[in-house]
Every structure is written in structure tokens, then in C-alpha cells.
């Protein structure tokens, strides 16, 4: 199997490195440097060699390395003193390990008994025995779980070894009470039930009698227990124990075998509620129990109280689980596909789009007139290709709900921590967006909401004083706008404290002492690198990560961030994100006869140079005046150091929008047209270039670079500053 060969190759490479490291370490140890660091490094290296060897079944190497490792373990914790004799034994053993590795690599056998003498020395040094697990246990083994079997073992066996008459399945009664520790280790009763359900039919009953009154409710307390009856013809006590393997000691559990005692007439197995419906039933209680994860609103604990809790949050949907189970019962409705495979399809569709547009370009009037069938065929091809492209993109698209759904809990926690009253409203959760974009969205959104809750929303008293309602509102919305998705976090809080922001920015050198800024520029400072009011404020937003992280994360996926704030009325932070990361709508331009593409989403307008109103600042750089506003000018030819037309006649200005409404005007030689391109990463294939977001292949097969407007602006700024 070639995979295995690949892994072996990796392993042997790694062994070579580890062996040379071991050589160095032992040389130093021989010189008398016997610190804990060296001993730990040596132990780890041998341990790694052993770990890999066991995966490939190099048993001679595993046995020797294991014995050696045991000695090293004794040495590092001082049970065996590291005298010169032990050092020389170790150095010799290291050579033996190298020999074993070499033999495994070349596939040759060493003499049986090679290294046996050293192993004997290890054992005598370590007190006559390997106190670690014997070698057989390297196989995956089963660790018994301490469970109480209410019934004698023979009964359990009887239920299985002698198959019950007819089809009567085995029946088990399991009572289960988790301890808080179970939740602290991220185990979840619901998952255990799911696992049990894979063994057979289960019926779960939740015991909520111990639920205290809301006033006495301890958020991290655990108040629920369950009894589960399992009907299964394949389960045995071992399989049931294995389900609870990871929660051993973290729960009280009793498993009772009922055998096939219940007559089918009394209880029709077919009438058992399906697991799907049980999940729905169990869920609210499960969530309450999960208060161990500080996840649940106490009021959610009882289905009856469910509605009481609802106003602050949209109803928690039974996540993934329920849906999946339902899907299963209706037959396969979804399949799990490796993202790489989807990406490959996306890429190939991209190439197809390019080929298709290349073919269309080749059709001149002459050909059109002569081959009408071909023309019609090409039109259909164009249509189908576009349809294919949309469908493929739809595969990668997911509702933003998957990210939004984490936010109610966050807001609840923030409200508790800050002592504020906050209501979260969510709009447009079903807006779909590319999976890779979604994955990058969680952290920025979390941070923005933290920021709103912490700095935006005021304390209840302050709100009342300002004539607002006691409860602050954070509105999280998503909508599609053309080729973009707009996601906004809006609050009705106090707005950005511009004086304070400016003061902090001046303190940190983000803004020069004499620099004058507009309100909007001040608001956008919160995204500036190096600006974080972290230490100044609280433990919520201030985790040492500033809002600049939001900006850089969003920029990474081709989006932009914008903030607008009205003092006393609130702040709106919006993210503009591309629908997909794979295909980009662009304007194709040429600079000194080289093609470049500019993302269409960033273009505001284009102007002929002859008609543009340029001005110059004292430093000599040009500015463009557009409707009374001055915009920085970047001549792409100059910027990229390529020859260009001597004068501006016939050249064009492309006015682009960079982050936060700031604009930049790019000067190009020619505007060729609009098209879609497939983005190819420069970093992956070459290296990062400032001002260039990537590359693409055009219809005629030539390569064009994608302009990174934001990047150009920054480099331009820096130059000006210097």
C-alpha cells in the first residue's frame, strides 16, 4: 500500500533526525551535562521512535526501544542514578536503536537476541522488572469500567451465550447519574445515549426531580439523571461498558441485564419511540444538565419552563444530531465529502469557465457565419458551464446559522459577566455563504459581539439615565448584496467614545500628535494594528487581542470591515464578505501591455485620465479630486516599476474603495473588460507580494496578477510617510 510506504518514508526521515539529535544529546551528557532538559529530550526521542515503530510492527525495535525508554524514565525521575556506567550503557543502546532502525529500513533481520544483553542490564538497573505495561498491551486493548452489575455475571452471560428463543432481543436497564466532572471533560450524556442507540433500541427517561428552584439553581450544578432501557440483540455487557468507558469515575452507573424476561405481548418493541423522537424529548433536559458547560439557561431545564427563557434567544434548534438522525431514517440524504474533493471540482469548473470563454473569444464573424451549429453549441456550453459553476458553489455554501448559533450563549455569558441586560436579535441566519468563509467568521464575530457587549451597551442604570430601555440590544444580521455577503453587528449602546479612542491612539503612536482625523477615521481606528484598549477596560474584550485581529481575519478572506457610530445611539460594525473564495468577478486592465485584474467589488468608477482632476501635494505625489474629496493616486506602472506611456493621454483612472470607505485611485493604461477569474494563490506557488492578492489564468492562457487594493494603499501610505 503506497500510503503505508509514504508513512514509512516519513518515519525513517524522522528517525534520522531523532537519532542525530540523540547523538548530540548523549555527547553532551557524556561531557557531564546531565540536566533534566537533556534527559527529557532523550526520553522523548526514544519514545517517538518506539511509537512509530509500533505502528509499522517493527517488533524488535519496539521491544528494545521500550526497554530503553523504561530505563530512561527511571533515570530522569532519579530512580536510577546517572553514573558513568549508565551513560555508556545509554550510548551503546543508542547505537543499537540506530541498528534496529537501519535494519527496519532495509528490511533485514538482526540476529535474534541482538540487544538482549543491554535489555537485561536495563531490567537489573530498574529493579528487575519492567513496571510499565508488557508489550502485548501495545495493541488496542479494553479497559474495564467500574460498573455495578446488579445481576450476577452468569445471568448476563446467559442472556447472550444462549441465544434467546425466537427473535426476542436482550434487554438491559441502565441507570446513569453524571458527576460535574463528566461535563468538565467535555463528555455529554446525549452522546452516550446516541452511542447506546447504535447498539439497539433505547428508551430514555430523564429524572429531573432534583432540580432546585430557579433561585437555588447552581449554574455548574448537575441535577439530572437518566434511566435507559436498551433492547438489543447484539449488545453484550462489554459493549455497554465500552460506551461508558470515557466517563468511568465521572458518574454513577448501574447496568442490569433483564434478559428476555419481558413478554413481547406486554410491550411491543415496535412501539418503542424511535431515537429521533427521543432526542427531541431529551434535548431540553440534556441542555440543562450541560449547565456544567455553562451552556444552559437554567430556565431551559424543564420543557415547561422553556418558553420563559425564550425571549433572550431564538429557540435552540436541536443541533446536527436530530437532523442527521432524521435523515438516516428517510434514507441517505446527505453524504460526507472531503473538502479537497469539492475544491478539486471547483477548480476544474473554474478551468472549464476559462476554456469556455477562450473558445467564445476565438469565434470571429467569419467562423460564426460558417458554423452556426457550433455557435449554438457554444452558447449552450456557456449556459451549462455557468449553471455548473453555480451548483458547485452551492455545494460549498452553508447557512451562516452554524456560526450565528454560537452567539446567544456568548451574549448570555457576557451579560452575566458584565451585569448588563442584553438581548440578541438575529436576522438572516439562513443566508448562505462559502464554507471556508464561514469557518473564518466565528472569531471575528465573537470579537465584535464581545466588543459591543463590553464597550457598546451601557449598564442598566446608565441606560435608564439616558432615557433608553434597560435592556440593550445587539442585532446580528446577514444578507446577500450582489456578489457579497453583508454581516453586521449593531448595538444601541453609547457609541464609540471618540475622544478616548483618539487619546489612546495618540498614546500608542497609532496617530501622530498633530494629525487631524475625521469622526469616521477615528471610529475606524479601533481596527488599527497596535490599537487595543485591552488593558484599559475589562477581562472580556481585553484578552490581549485587539479588533485589528478582526480586520486581518476578514481581509484574509477578501472581505472588508466598516464601522459607523453615533454617540449615544449605538455602533454598527459591518463585514463585507465575498460569496465565495474561489471565483472572483474582476475588471481586466492592462499596464505596460501586461494584464492585471482588479476585483470588481472594490471598483467604484472609472474615469479617463484626460477628464480627471488631478492635484499635487507639496511632496510631489498626485491626488485625485473627486466631487470635492481628495483621493490618493497610485500609478500601477510606477508602483510595479514597469515602463509606461510617457503621458496620461488615453490612460484611465480606476477609482477603488479600500477598507472603511477610504478610496484609492489606480492609474492603468487600458481597460479591457469584465470577466470572472479563478484565483490562484501566489503564496502557495511563489511568494507573497505586497499589493498583489494572487494570480489567475486568462482565457488566452496568459497569467494576470490580481491587484490587492488595500495592500497598495498601505504601501503607498508608507512611502508617503517616509
Amino acid at each position: 500500500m503506497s500510503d503505508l510506504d509514504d508513512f514509512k518514508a516519513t518515519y525513517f526521515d524522522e528517525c534520522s533526525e531523532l537519532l542525530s539529535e540523540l547523538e548530540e544529546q548523549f555527547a553532551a551528557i557524556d561531557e557531564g551535562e546531565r540536566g533534566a532538559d537533556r534527559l527529557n529530550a532523550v526520553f522523548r526521542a526514544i519514545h517517538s521512535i518506539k511509537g512509530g515503530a509500533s505502528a509499522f510492527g517493527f517488533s524488535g525495535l519496539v521491544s528494545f526501544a521500550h526497554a530503553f525508554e523504561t530505563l530512561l524514565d527511571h533515570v530522569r525521575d532519579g530512580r536510577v542514578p546517572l553514573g558513568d556506567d549508565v551513560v555508556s550503557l545509554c550510548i551503546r543502546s543508542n547505537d543499537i536503536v540506530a541498528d534496529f532502525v537501519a535494519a527496519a529500513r532495509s528490511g533485514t533481520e538482526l540476529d535474534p537476541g541482538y540487544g538482549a544483553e543491554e535489555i537485561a542490564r536495563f531490567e537489573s538497573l530498574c529493579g528487575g522488572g519492567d513496571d510499565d505495561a508488557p508489550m502485548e498491551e501495545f495493541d488496542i486493548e479494553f479497559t474495564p469500567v467500574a460498573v455495578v452489575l446488579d445481576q450476577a455475571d452468569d445471568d448476563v452471560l446467559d442472556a447472550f451465550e444462549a441465544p434467546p428463543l425466537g427473535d426476542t432481543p436482550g434487554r438491559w436497564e441502565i441507570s446513569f447519574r453524571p458527576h460535574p466532572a463528566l461535563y468538565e471533560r467535555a463528555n455529554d450524556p446525549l452522546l452516550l445515549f446516541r452511542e447506546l442507540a447504535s447498539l439497539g433500541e433505547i428508551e430514555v427517561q430523564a429524572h429531573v426531580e432534583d432540580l432546585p428552584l430557579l433561585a437555588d439553581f447552581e449554574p455548574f450544578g448537575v441535577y439530572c439523571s437518566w434511566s435507559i432501557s436498551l433492547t438489543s440483540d447484539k449488545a453484550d455487557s462489554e459493549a455497554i461498558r465500552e460506551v461508558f468507558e470515557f466517563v468511568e469515575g465521572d458518574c454513577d452507573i448501574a447496568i442490569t441485564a433483564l434478559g428476555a424476561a419481558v413478554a413481547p405481548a406486554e410491550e411491543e418493541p415496535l412501539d418503542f419511540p424511535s431515537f429521533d423522537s427521543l432526542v427531541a424529548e431529551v434535548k431540553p433536559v440534556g441542555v440543562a444538565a450541560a449547565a456544567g458547560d455553562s451552556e444552559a439557561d437554567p430556565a431551559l431545564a424543564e420543557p415547561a419552563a422553556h418558553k420563559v427563557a425564550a425571549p433572550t434567544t431564538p429557540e435552540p434548534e436541536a443541533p446536527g444530531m436530530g437532523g442527521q438522525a432524521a435523515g438516516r431514517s428517510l434514507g441517505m440524504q446527505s453524504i460526507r465529502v472531503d473538502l479537497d474533493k469539492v475544491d478539486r471540482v471547483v477548480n476544474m469548473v473554474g478551468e472549464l469557465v476559462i476554456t469556455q470563454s477562450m473558445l467564445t473569444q476565438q469565434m470571429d464573424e467569419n467562423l460564426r457565419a460558417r458554423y452556426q451549429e457550433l455557435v449554438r453549441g457554444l452558447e449552450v456550453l456557456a449556459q451549462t458551464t455557468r449553471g455548473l459553476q453555480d451548483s458547485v458553489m452551492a455545494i460549498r455554501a452553508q447557512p451562516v446559522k452554524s456560526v450565528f448559533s454560537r452567539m446567544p450563549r456568548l451574549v448570555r455569558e457576557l451579560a452575566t459577566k458584565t451585569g448588563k441586560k442584553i438581548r440578541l436579535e438575529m436576522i438572516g441566519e439562513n443566508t448562505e455563504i462559502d464554507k471556508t468563509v464561514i469557518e473564518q467568521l466565528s472569531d471575528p464575530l465573537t470579537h465584535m459581539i464581545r466588543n459591543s457587549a463590553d464597550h457598546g451597551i451601557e449598564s442598566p442604570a446608565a441606560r435608564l439615565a439616558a432615557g433608553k430601555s434597560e435592556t440593550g440590544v445587539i442585532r446580528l444580521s446577514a444578507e446577500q448584496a450582489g456578489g457579497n455577503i453583508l454581516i453586521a453587528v449593531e448595538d444601541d449602546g453609547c457609541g464609540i467614545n471618540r475622544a478616548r479612542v483618539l487619546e489612546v491612539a495618540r498614546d500608542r503612536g497609532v496617530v501622530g500628535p498633530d494629525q487631524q482625523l475625521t469622526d469616521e477615521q477615528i471610529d475606524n481606528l479601533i481596527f488599527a494594528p497596535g490599537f487595543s484598549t485591552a488593558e484599559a477596560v475589562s477581562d472580556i474584550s481585553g484578552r490581549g487581542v485587539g479588533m485589528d485581529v478582526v480586520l486581518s481575519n476578514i481581509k484574509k478572506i477578501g472581505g472588508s470591515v466598516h464601522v459607523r457610530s453615533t454617540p449615544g445611539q449605538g455602533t454598527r460594525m459591518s463585514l463585507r464578505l465575498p460569496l465565495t473564495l474561489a471565483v472572483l468577478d474582476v475588471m481586466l486592465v492592462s499596464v505596460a501591455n501586461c494584464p492585471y485584474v482588479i476585483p470588481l467589488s472594490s471598483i467604484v468608477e472609472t474615469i479617463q485620465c484626460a477628464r480627471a482632476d488631478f492635484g499635487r501635494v507639496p511632496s510631489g505625489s498626485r491626488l485625485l479630486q473627486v466631487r470635492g474629496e481628495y483621493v490618493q493616486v497610485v500609478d500601477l506602472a510606477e508602483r510595479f516599476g514597469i515602463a509606461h506611456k510617457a503621458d496620461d493621454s488615453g490612460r484611465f483612472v480606476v477609482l477603488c474603495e479600500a477598507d472603511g470607505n477610504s478610496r484609492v485611485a489606480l492609474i492603468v493604461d487600458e481597460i479591457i473588460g469584465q470577466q470572472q477569474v479563478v484565483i490562484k494563490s501566489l503564496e502557495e506557488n511563489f511568494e507573497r507580494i505586497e499589493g498583489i492578492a494572487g494570480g489567475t489564468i486568462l482565457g488566452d492562457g496568459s497569467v494576470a496578477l490580481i491587484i490587492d487594493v488595500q495592500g497598495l494603499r498601505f504601501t503607498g501610505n508608507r512611502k508617503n510617510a517616509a
Partner: protein
Amino acid sequence: MRVLTVDDSRTILAMLHHTLSSAGFEVLQAEDGQKGLDVLKTESVDIVITDVNMPVMDGIEFIRNVRASGQHQSLPILILTTETSQEKRDLGRAAGGTGWIVKPFDPEKLISVINRVIH
């Protein structure tokens, strides 16, 4: 589903990557606990699989830090280890580990254990 694998052995990382990506997981990698923590600062994952013996920051310390961060209480963390002694597992669990996998792992077993602890 995204999984973060933390191991100082490239071999083990490669084998995990192969097994997990064939099963449809997106795999992130880190070669020690500190790097694992760095990954968790910027990436969200559905499950973590970590080795115990690693340089810089070992698996136990890593788990403790993840749980202490206050953001990952319900993140399942599996301890991947050749240590068959109960002691390491107990240490891992005391630090907040959800379950364990014994190296060398059987691919099917690995996936089934993961499926046991993720939502």
C-alpha cells in the same frame, strides 16, 4: 468537521492526517502543546487529538491550558498515547481530557472513538 492534531512526531501527524481526511475531517496540525494553543487562538475546531510526550509543552499541560482558557470547556479532547499505564490516562483526564486513543491506532477505531465524543 475540523480536528486539531497535536503531536511532535511527523509520522503520527501524517498517519492521523491520512486517516482523518479520508474520513472527511479537515485536519489542522501542531507539533507541540504551545503551537496547539496558538492554533486554538485563531481557529475553531470541533475536536482535538493530542499526544502526551512532547517538547516545549506536553499534552497534559496543553489540555490544562485549553480548559483554563475559559473558551473551550465543551471541546472534546482525546489523548493519543502509547502509554498503556493507567497513570498517564488519569493525568490526562484529570487535566480535562475527554477520552483516549492508544497508539498504534486502528483507523476504524480512531474514527469510531471520535464519533463517540463529537456532536
